[in-house]
């Protein structure tokens, strides 16, 4: 009966209800699309970064991330490789040696991060092979090197030229080697492109006196939403194969800056949604309160006839919930049916201008993508329920505390 009464009350002033509904619908559409946009952009940022270099997970010697020196290593044995490859959830694994070297050509010299990569495995995890703009990726050749385009320019070398690498090996002895430039790579960030060179894992192990060792094994997971599970099975699988203690680090630990950036961005978005919710809640409060005040007499009669104040309270709550529920249903329907949503899913929009430049510098594909998850409608539902409950509090209390005598006399 309460529902029927509530329904009738909502229908009493159709214009007012329509305007209130419009506000709720607007809020729901905004919530769903804002979160879908954020999720889409974040997922792409994560995926870009993961695929650019880091991988979803990294297997390293214990404490490697603390100092990133050659002192911490993983013994990359065929048994360990087999154990990693056989771990459920691991899609690909790429062992790497992370060193530093001074590269020079005559008097031009530049310090670089010198990465030793497995030419066959690397492409399974990162996009390095696709980033070769001239020449070719590393293969079976010996003492070949890939340079960032800007690095080659600074060193004044081109394909086929030689550069001298000078470094300090794992044994802390000086090490030198001449490499032939096999290809030039493009990295999104100009500074990165100037300070990066790739050689084969085998050459790196020879240069750094690092036989059988690697600094990290970057892993691509089959399902990026189940990294915890994959981490655990990986840790269990490798512990039997390694004498030294190892760490398995997920990408947020490997790239804390990215993880933090996403947290800050989320904080901004959710504070914005919070403000929106408050504004809409006031709109609902006003509608319900007006409808209660208009019905003073009617409510007074109901109370006089013996309806418990609790029932009145419930009635007002039913109105509020009904209004929000209706708005929610309309809003969700509209949000999901909006041509934008249908189109955006799977149609990233390219961005231009300043923002494009910035996202390229950050290393992101310059597109806006959209990703709808079950979380969006769930969040919208949660927020609207909260609005309905909060907004009805004052009018409901007001209605329930009406004194029949006053209410009847006032007319």
């Amino acid at each position, binding site marked *: 009966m309460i529902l029927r009464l509530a329904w009738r009350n909502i229908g009493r*002033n159709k*214009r*007012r209800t329509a*305007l*209130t509904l*419009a*506000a709720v619908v*607007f*809020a729901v559409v*905004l919530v769903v699309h804002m979160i879908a946009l954020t999720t889409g952009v974040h997922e792409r940022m994560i995926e870009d970064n993961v695929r650019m270099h880091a991988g979803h997970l990294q297997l390293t010697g214990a404490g490697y991330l*603390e*100092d*990133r*020196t*050659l*002192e911490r290593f993983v013994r990359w044995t065929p048994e360990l490789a087999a154990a990693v490859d056989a771990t459920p959830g691991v899609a690909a694994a790429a062992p790497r040696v992370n060193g*530093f070297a*001074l590269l*020079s050509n005559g*008097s*031009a*010299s530049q*310090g*670089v991060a010198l990465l030793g990569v497995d030419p066959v495995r690397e492409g399974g995890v990162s996009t390095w092979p696709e980033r070769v703009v001239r020449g070719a990726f590393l293969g079976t050749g010996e003492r070949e090197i890939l340079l960032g385009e*800007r690095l080659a320019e*600074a*060193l004044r070398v081109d394909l086929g030229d030689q550069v001298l690498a*000078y*470094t*300090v090996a794992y044994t*802390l002895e*000086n090490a030198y080697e001449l490499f032939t430039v096999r290809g030039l790579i493009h990295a999104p960030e100009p500074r990165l492109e100037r300070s990066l060179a790739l050689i084969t894992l085998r050459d790196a192990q020879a240069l750094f006196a690092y036989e059988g060792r690697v600094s990290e094994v970057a892993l691509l997971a089959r399902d990026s939403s189940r990294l915890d599970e994959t981490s655990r099975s990986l840790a269990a699988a490798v512990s039997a194969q390694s004498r030294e203690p190892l760490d398995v680090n997920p990408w947020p630990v490997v790239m*804390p*800056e990215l*993880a*933090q*950036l996403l*947290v*800050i961005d989320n904080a*901004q978005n959710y*504070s*914005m949604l*919070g*403000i*929106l919710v*408050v*504004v*809409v809640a*006031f*709109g609902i*409060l*006003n509608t319900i*309160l*007006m409808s209660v005040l208009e019905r003073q007499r009617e409510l007074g009669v109901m109370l006089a006839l013996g309806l418990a104040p609790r029932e009145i309270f419930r009635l007002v709550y039913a109105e509020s919930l009904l209004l929000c529920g209706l708005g929610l249903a309309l809003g969700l329907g509209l949000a999901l049916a909006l041509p934008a949503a249908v189109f955006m899913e799977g149609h990233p929009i390219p961005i231009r201008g*300043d*923002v494009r*430049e*910035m996202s390229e*510098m*950050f290393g992101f594909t310059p597109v806006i993508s959209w990703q709808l998850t079950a979380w969006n409608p769930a969040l919208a539902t949660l927020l609207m329920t909260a609005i309905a409950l909060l907004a009805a509090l004052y009018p409901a209390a007001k209605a329930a505390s009406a004194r029949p005598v006053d209410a009847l006399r006032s007319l």
Partner: protein
Amino acid sequence: MARALAEFARSLVRASTWRLALRGLGRQPRRSAIVLVAVAIGLGSLLVAMALQYGLVAQMAETAIRTEIGDLQAHAAGWKDTAPLEARLLEAESLAALSRARELAGFAPRLRGEALAQSPLASVGVRVLGVDPEREGSVSTLSSFLHEGAWLDAPRRLAIGAGLARRLRVAVGDKVVLAVQDVRGDLTGEAFRVAGIYRAPSRELDEAVAILRLDDAQRLFAVAGEISELAFAARERGALEAPRAEVARALGPGVRVETWRELEPMLDTMIALFDQIGWVMYAAIFVAMAFGIANVLLMSVLERAREIGVLLAIGMPPARMVAIVVTESVVLVALGVAAGFAFGFAVIFALRDGIDLSAFGDGLRAFGVPTRLTPVARSGDVWAPLAVAVVTALLASLWPALRAVRTRPAEALRKA
């Protein structure tokens, strides 16, 4: 149409229009108050949120500028396309040319290079920064981050970040060998003692930079009397063109002078993006509020159907009726916006000492974010919501105003 518009404009300035509008709002003070509070809270909290976000970006930029970059930098032309040691300037000549610069608060010569830092236990690639300990303080705050030991107090000393000390496993007083390729292409090296360990607000500075005295760096790289960079502090952050022109004139052709915006385009873009984000945010909030405002106006118009009917019946021009409803909307929004500004700026003022972010500490430090966040409001935070509010007030009153004009006097009177 033109007549109606003229009538509308005339009505807006009439006292009676305002009186009627205020009476309309005062009819249900509780209802008007709720909308007012909604506008005030929505606008006020958005102001605070925007100021906090901008404060974060502004502080990141400020930290980057103050820590190392400076307002302006000068390099030999073409420095971006060559190896670090290839583009050099003459130290004495440059300093002499700048001695009479009046637009600058300070300038500091630097030499940049790269080295392999070696301790008995580890080897790490580092960026070498040679600074003049006396002059550097006039541009950057590097020395203020000193955590342990002393700041380059004697020759053959270096200062490193706590992160680099950890990677090399060295402490104050330990020896570190810097192996480099000097300007002639010879591989060479020299031992330095760790004089001080600093804690810098950026991961790179903390983990991969070694700071030396300029003369030590010049000897190490065999570039006596030469520098690779001049960093400048301007008198005013906002006015960089005059000092830039002055520096460019003093140093002559062959030298490229750039502002921090050009040196760090990412920071610049992030700040520029804020104006666009601001518009979207304020617009979204005001659209949400427009429904509430329209609702109140419409209710007020419907309740006054009789009054409006009478007014129209005795010959009030419809344009004036529209003016009354529009005025009602404008007054409501204006009061809400005023309260919102008061609320928002009061909170911003209350937070002027910053919010403690040390709980986030380490992660944020990598961005160069200090551990206290201070909200910073800009002129855009005043005029963007004002512009959006005016549009909102007009749009929200559209339907109620038309509804009022369409009131048919006879019906309105009969009903009552």
